[in-house]
């Protein structure tokens, strides 16, 4: 009897404690918001697939990098060559379709992110080709980082290799992010392993989140010259477990979405660890607002095969203090299906790109 009481009390204590811990992660006040119906107007023969990237330029034009069309491997060839599967579309500020950029380009296979730099250049990160592609505002290729693997391995090399195992760049290609030193540290070069995101500091230095395969952040100067990279697979400071997103503030500090470790790590411009922001779920997409008082948005994106948990977006001070949160996983307007990108050029008018729901939502926040 005594024992039963004791264990009952313990169970009660545990069950009280658990919600408390979870509450702490979700204590931010709810931000009211609306979703604009049908924000994008398409021609009949243009369809979004999984929306990986969405970004606006200084004129309010909207760029969407989406997994659509047919990713293919041709047969009757010396090796297995893979093509296609993603497209980049531009819309004007009213959501009217303007044009396609990079149609049929060699580096588009699995869309991962699109970001616009201060000069309105359009930067695309492709997860499968492992490439970062800079287009000028006219849509011409200006700079490339990384190289697409020449061919596919059949069967494919599994994504999660054993720690310290031989890394391959998508199989059969040159180099690969050959593990030199710590697992996930990658090559000291612009060879990426399923990169995820890109950002710049005020001087134009380029930072690449790398990514699903590697576990590092790489820094290049504005001409694409490799400067350094930091990180390896793990949960210590400066280590990562899926570098899923990246943003840089006006002082040049880096905010890195360390999804698998459920935290955002903050680094100075040289990669020195400064702080970590927890209680934001598994951060997948990050965005830092402009202007004198900058805010950080971070999405605790639900996995694509589950809409019954997570999904909310947090608004944070750069110190990590939660301002508020909004949304949940689901398929309706104002619900989110695996948010992979947030555009926050306007602090209270966000665009989010969803992998699970094949759509872009325009959100009006009412803080």
């Amino acid at each position, binding site marked *: 009897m005594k024992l039963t009481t004791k264990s009952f009390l313990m169970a009660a204590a545990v069950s009280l404690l658990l919600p408390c811990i979870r509450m702490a992660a979700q204590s931010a006040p709810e931000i009211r918001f609306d979703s604009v119906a049908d924000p994008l107007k398409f021609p*009949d023969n243009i*369809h979004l697939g999984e929306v990986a990237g969405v970004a606006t330029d200084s004129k309010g034009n909207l760029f969407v990098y989406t997994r659509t*069309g047919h990713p293919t491997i041709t047969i009757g060839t010396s090796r297995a060559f893979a093509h296609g599967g993603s497209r980049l579309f531009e819309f004007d500020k009213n959501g009217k379709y303007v044009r396609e950029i990079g149609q049929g380009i060699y580096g588009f296979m699995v869309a991962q992110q699109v970001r616009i730099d201060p000069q309105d250049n359009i930067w695309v990160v492709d997860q*499968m080709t492992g490439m970062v592609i800079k287009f000028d505002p006219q849509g011409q290729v200006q700079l490339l980082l990384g190289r697409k693997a020449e061919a596919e391995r*059949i069967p494919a090399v599994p994504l999660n290799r054993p720690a310290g195992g031989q890394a391959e760049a998508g199989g059969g290609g040159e180099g690969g992010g050959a593990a030199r030193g710590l697992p996930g540290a990658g090559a000291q070069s612009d060879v990426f392993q399923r990169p995820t995101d890109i950002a710049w500091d005020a001087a134009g230095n380029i930072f690449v989140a790398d990514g699903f395969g590697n576990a590092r952040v790489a820094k290049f100067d504005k001409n694409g010259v490799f400067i350094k990279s930091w990180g390896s697979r793990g949960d210590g400071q400066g280590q990562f477990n899926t570098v899923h997103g990246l943003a840089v503030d006006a002082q040049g500090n880096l905010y890195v979405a360390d999804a698998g470790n459920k935290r955002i790590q903050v680094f100075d411009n040289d990669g020195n660890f400064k702080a970590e922001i927890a209680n934001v779920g598994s951060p997948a997409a990050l965005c830092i607002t402009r202007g004198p008082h900058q805010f950080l948005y971070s999405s605790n994106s639900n996995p694509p095969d589950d809409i*019954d948990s997570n999904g909310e977006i947090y608004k944070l001070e750069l110190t990590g203090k939660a301002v508020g949160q909004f949304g949940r996983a689901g*398929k309706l307007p104002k619900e989110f299906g695996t948010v992979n990108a947030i555009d926050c050029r306007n602090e209270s008018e966000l665009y989010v790109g969803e992998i699970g729901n094949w759509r872009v939502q325009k959100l009006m926040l009412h803080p």
Partner: protein
Amino acid sequence: MKQSAAACFLLLAVICAGTAHAQKKATAQNVPEIPYTSVPNFLKMPPNLYLGEAIGVATNSKGHVFVYTRSANTRLFEFDEKGNYVREIGEGLYGFEFAHSVRVDSQDNIWVVDEGTNMVIKFNPQGQVVMVLGHRPDVVAGAVPTPVGPAPPAQKYTFSRPTDVGWDPQGNIFVSDGYGNARVVKYDKNGRFLKQVGSEKNGSGPGQFNLPHGIAVDAKGNVYVADRTNSRLQVLDNDLNPKAIYDNIGTSWTVCVSQGPHQYLFTSNSNPNGNPPGSWANTGEIYKMELDGTIVGRFGHASKQFGGFQVVHMFDCRNPNEIIVAEIESWRVQKLMLQSPETKISSAR
């Protein structure tokens, strides 16, 4: 002696063929034949546009016909009620790889089920994607081997080669899933998982499935499942509890419930792919039934000729007297005008 050995061999061959193709002669006796005619040149294709395997067919409330076909790419076409070509929907869509079903709901939204991408896709009547269920296997994984061996546990929001979709009057969504899994899943109208019956494992008991290949829901919310490899049709209530099994109509490939105050249930004992010897004599017909399983009649037969069927994959029965049939192996869609009078007799179940 020699003769009986040959007969034995023949019997064995027939049994083997029957097993390999899981095809069964219907046991229903004395079923009246429903006379019909097939409308000549029903679908008018524009030059240089071809149907491939005509996998899915459905009509909307205006009589427009939607065909989901495996051509060079899987494509979705719309025709008007006279069979004139109207347009293509979802051209180049990420979710289109290997057609399996198209259905139109009561608001004229168009739903397709693609067993190549494991997706169920809802288009509004204008042809825009408004909801997706399921998740296409990650492309970035590259060319992964086709899974063999036991299926992994079925997930709430991930399909394994799903086959068909239906809705009850409340808008709840029912998905038959499929070749990989062996279950029926119920979602609310907003796509949230409610429950499932069956699992990733094949079975032959009530509420178990072996290739649930088609699904339809009546006005009371009862669910009819073509349990193909079990050669039967299972009826479930709205909460997915087993209600009845109809196993006298051969191998149920697909099901359809007509509209209107008196609903009929149709199912096809399709002739098997590959035309194994003897199969045309025993299979190929479509049954018209009352919802309670009483057989009204049968029509059609296996044939490559116009008016016959060559592996019926799906059909539309919005109007129970006008059946629009899609065939796998004749790459065609036929519109059948069923004729009255029909002699209604009880089935010999």
